[in-house]
């Protein structure tokens, strides 16, 4: 079972390396979305500092949703998904492997880019650190839930919009506690409670989402 997981992650990362444009798109979208806010809201540093964590989190969520819609589509179309599902007991491995590769290609670049945007919004170093810590715990949740949405909407027309409608509400807790951690640090409080809740959310999602995703894949290919 762990063998299947490793084979799938290695293949997905190799495929991504061959299609670099697809990898750059989510991070480019993230950059554009975040950069729009200072232009729209106005350049007052006080306001920007206040909205920064929320803006970065919402942009991260949208970037993750944008890139997750095609997570299973290509494998479904060319028959690879069927071959993966034929491996006994592999459904959860498939779901986990897909979420992990999505996180490597979307979540990780966003975490790396987040400090730069923190500086753009004039955040303090402590606030930037808590933003990054929150993203480290929260972006895997987005990838896991996004994978579930992709499996549920596999093979549907207008599946992308449906996916966003189904999954975005489930991501709200991650946004609240992720952005809340930064707000807590900025007002001089401890963000430990927020991190604990994000961690609990991650564990909860990591246990349940792959099972649900596996069941959804099974239904989608029947």
């Amino acid at each position: 079972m762990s063998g299947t997981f490793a084979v799938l992650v290695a293949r997905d990362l190799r495929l991504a390396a061959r299609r670099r444009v697809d990898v750059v798109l989510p991070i480019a979208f993230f950059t554009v979305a975040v950069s729009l806010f200072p232009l729209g809201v106005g350049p007052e540093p006080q306001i920007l500092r206040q909205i920064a964590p929320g803006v970065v989190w919402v942009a991260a969520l949208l970037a993750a949703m944008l890139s997750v819609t095609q997570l299973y589509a290509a494998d479904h179309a060319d028959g690879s998904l069927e071959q993966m599902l034929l491996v006994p007991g592999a459904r959860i491995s498939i779901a986990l492997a897909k979420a992990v590769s999505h996180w490597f290609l979307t979540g990780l670049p966003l975490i790396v880019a987040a400090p730069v945007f923190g500086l753009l919004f004039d955040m303090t170093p402590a606030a930037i650190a808590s933003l990054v810590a929150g993203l480290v715990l929260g972006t895997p949740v987005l990838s896991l839930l996004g994978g579930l949405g992709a499996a549920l909407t596999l093979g549907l027309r207008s599946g992308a919009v449906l996916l966003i409608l189904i999954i975005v509400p489930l991501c709200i807790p991650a946004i609240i506690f992720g952005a809340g951690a930064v707000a807590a640090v900025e007002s001089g409080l401890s963000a430990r409670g927020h991190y604990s809740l994000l961690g609990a959310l991650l564990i909860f999602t990591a246990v349940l989402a792959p099972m649900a995703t596996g069941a959804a894949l099974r239904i989608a290919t029947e």
Partner: protein
Amino acid sequence: MAGDPAANANPPGDSVLSVRDLECRRGDRVLFAPISFDVAAGQIVWIRGANGQGKTTLLRTLAGLSAPAAGKLAWAGAPENVPRPLYLAHANALKEDLTVSESLRFLLHLADHRVDGGDVDAALERFGMASRRDAFVRTLSQGQRRRVALARLAAQRELLPWLLDEPFDALDAAGVELLAGVIAGHARRGGAVVLTSHLPLPIDEPAPAIVQLREPALA
């Protein structure tokens, strides 16, 4: 029942698969009249039927991808040691952006982690694709892609039952002959084969048993 008597005749080897009164549905529609047949070790079973009659659905059901609407199917052996059939679908399951050998290696690794580079090369050689092993799949013709997908058959270490959906599609005359040889060889070694084909099977020995899918009786 509608199963062909030839398929129900005394099997030459141990029974690998037994199908009893199996029905498949696509949506609300029953695809074919209930069928019963056995597949024995070393036997080639040729599923025949009109377009849309449910040949692919039947193979998918045998592979375990879909649940039967009615009836039973049982692979021989204890439940935990059921032989996992090798299912080659109509789609080739190759990735455009991987090379030929990467694609094949991935598919082999999914099923069996002991596969090494030598197995992959030998299998490609057998299907005449060794010279294109580092070419990207997107540069191949339909027939070449089919050959790469079929090369999985030549790389099998275990004598798994094969489920082949229109394996002769897109192949040239030499490819058809080659594949017929591989399938007949598998059967002679004692492997079971269930396949669909809308062309006459170019396999004489062992003679394929025919299972004909028929229209379901009107309700």
